[in-house]
């Protein structure tokens, strides 16, 4: 939380908007140049991921949740990711209007990103984008993913708390189990509580969640919510605070930092790999696999600036 006595400088939306474009569009070399020597935000910033299958009402839920966070006098930054068209690379980014419905909260900043090359429900350079927001005096940084599936694991390592949103409906549970969703979340939300089967779904999810090995472990709560009516948002907020508190008392900060940094470096290397393979001459793929492999690996690095 910020020092209440010192007035906080207002968010410079134009400057931050530009900086985010620079980092989101950056090649790995540029991203590294920005990050080089940067230790990360000195203050404690809470990072939260919101994920779940398409159509479960993630954006509306984020909108309600953001209001709860703002009510704690916290400055909130949100990154909302929508898919890019595989044909034109274009995208329609429509999530944000559900997130900043009032449109005039001084302490809220929302940025939409297209997934572009990312195939994991996230966006290019997402780790850098989140790091940049952290460095810009936000208290909470939220990221809403495209859908569910692979992104569970990727976003898992980038955030402190992962909220998985599901809704009642026959197919969802099966999909959830298949996608391994129930192994990654810190908090589960069953949205659209007014639909039939919502309460049963809460019980069902709770019964199949990973069970704590000891009393010290975190047992993911399952929250019944209705983003449309606003029900369950206070419970969700309380669950997040509880998770933050649990992390603070149970997780070693250095370990957490290492995990985060490992994910960030892996993301950079993966993106660098895409740069090299996408940019390679056709000739590279005419040689045998081992030779191509070594050529690609040799091409990954460049001298540190």
């Amino acid at each position, binding site marked *: 939380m910020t020092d209440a006595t010192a007035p906080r400088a207002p968010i410079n*939306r134009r400057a931050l908007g530009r900086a985010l474009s620079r980092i989101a569009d950056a090649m790995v070399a540029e991203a590294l140049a920005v990050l080089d020597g940067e230790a990360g935000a000195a203050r404690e910033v809470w990072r939260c991921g919101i994920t779940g299958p398409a159509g479960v009402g993630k954006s509306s839920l984020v909108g309600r949740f953001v209001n709860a966070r703002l009510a704690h006098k916290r400055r909130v930054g949100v990154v909302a990711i929508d898919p890019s068209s595989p044909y034109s690379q*274009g995208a329609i980014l429509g999530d*944000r209007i559900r997130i900043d419905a009032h449109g005039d909260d001084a302490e809220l900043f929302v940025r939409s990103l297209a997934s572009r090359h990312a195939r994991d429900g996230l966006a290019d350079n997402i780790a850098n984008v989140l790091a940049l927001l952290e460095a810009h005096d936000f208290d909470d940084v939220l990221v809403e993913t495209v859908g569910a599936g692979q992104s569970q694991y990727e976003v898992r390592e980038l955030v402190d708390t992962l909220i998985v949103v599901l809704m009642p409906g026959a197919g969802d549970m099966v999909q959830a189990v298949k996608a391994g969703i129930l192994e990654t979340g810190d908090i589960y939300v069953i949205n659209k509580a007014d639909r039939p089967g919502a309460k049963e779904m809460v019980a069902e999810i709770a019964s199949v969640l990973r069970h704590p090995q000891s009393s010290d472990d975190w047992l993911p709560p399952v929250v019944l919510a209705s983003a449309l009516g606003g029900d369950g948002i206070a419970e969700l907020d309380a669950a997040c605070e509880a998770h933050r508190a649990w992390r603070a008392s149970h997780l070693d900060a250095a370990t957490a930092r290492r995990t985060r940094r490992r994910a960030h470096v892996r993301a950079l290397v993966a993106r660098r790999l895409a740069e090299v393979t996408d940019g390679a001459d056709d000739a590279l793929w005419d040689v045998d696999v081992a030779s191509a492999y070594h050529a690609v690996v040799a091409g990954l690095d460049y001298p540190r600036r």
Partner: protein
Amino acid sequence: MATQLQGKRILIAKPGLDGHDVGAKVIALALRDAGAEVIYTGLRKTPDYIARVAAEENVDAVGLSILSGSHLELVKLTAAALKREHADDVPLFVGGTIPRGDWNALKESGVDCVFDSEMSLEQIVDEVARRLA
């Protein structure tokens, strides 16, 4: 497929209370098909909100769709709001039912280009691409 807008970010917004949004949606789809990342605001957005989104999203252009006859006032208000957000360098386009007699007044208020409904989508995309090149 045409991709002349790849890498561009464009805000398509509906200021005021006018509820006719199909034109705006068709343009949004056409820009997307040309490779642009389009932020579409939905209905009833205030000029202040539009300017704020333009700044946060760091868009390359703002397109306003207005069919209520309030284009002169709404464009002026939006241009002023963009200035307050230090985003008055972002090109401003307007489409909808805009009488030709108002085109000059709009351009004096800071509009770069006015589009009418009889232009083809290709013409509109080309013109946007030319101005963002």
